[in-house]
């Protein structure tokens, strides 16, 4: 018997993979922050926000079923992340102006951020065009619900971790453009 749900299966898997990818990006940012002592600048924080927002749209797809409005959230967030990354690249593109943070595989984190944002824009634009996924209601299988709740829990954890990090880094005032220490630590 032919299963007509297989196409939905691949789209769900694609959504989950993109969310996991975003989580890896954010965990890597924390690794750079805590292990290599590279504090995030305001633009870096905005890029982190953009990645969280990208995952938010995909999570809505998994929780409430596939809808173009959820993909539009992801697209808008990816465009936002790309713009912020481009702004940061523009700040350092002139020779002699230096760079922020260390390079990974020859590229700085904000350059990787732009590349990932563009890849997400392309992949979501393709996914958005697959009409059949919109016929399906939210998946109600128990095992699937556990996966969705686990993804939500990870995203909430990453968001709270970012909030705590920002409070320690900036306090309750303007974040410094070039942070060197945690303000709440060294008062």
């Amino acid at each position, binding site marked *: 018997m032919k299963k007509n749900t297989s196409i939905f299966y691949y789209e769900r898997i694609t959504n989950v993979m993109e969310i996991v990818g975003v989580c890896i990006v954010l965990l890597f940012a924390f690794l750079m922050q805590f292990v290599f002592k590279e504090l995030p600048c305001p633009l870096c924080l905005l890029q982190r*926000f953009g990645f969280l*927002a990208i995952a938010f749209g995909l999570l809505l797809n998994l929780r*409430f079923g596939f809808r173009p409005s959820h993909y539009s959230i992801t697209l808008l*967030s990816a465009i936002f992340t790309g713009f912020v990354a481009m*702004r940061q690249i523009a700040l350092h593109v002139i020779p002699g102006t230096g760079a922020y943070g260390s390079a990974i595989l020859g590229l700085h984190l904000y350059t990787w951020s732009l590349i990932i944002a563009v890849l997400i824009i392309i992949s979501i634009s393709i996914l958005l065009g697959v009409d059949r996924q919109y016929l399906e209601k939210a998946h109600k299988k128990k095992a699937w619900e556990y996966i969705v709740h686990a993804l939500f829990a990870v995203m*909430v954890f990453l968001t709270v971790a970012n*909030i705590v990090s920002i409070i320690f880094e*900036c306090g309750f005032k*303007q974040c410094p453009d070039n942070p060197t220490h945690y303000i709440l630590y060294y008062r």
Partner: protein
Amino acid sequence: MLILISFIVFLLALMSAWFGKRDKAMIVFTISLILSTLSFIHHMTNTIGLSL
């Protein structure tokens, strides 16, 4: 400060979606995206009277 507020509002949107309130989540998310866009614009222009 505006970045911090954006993250907190985003957390509210995430929690709303987790608890099944889709419409509320979409509205709250839109507010957080507007706030973060404002802080980005402020960073680029330094003309709006909001602090990062």
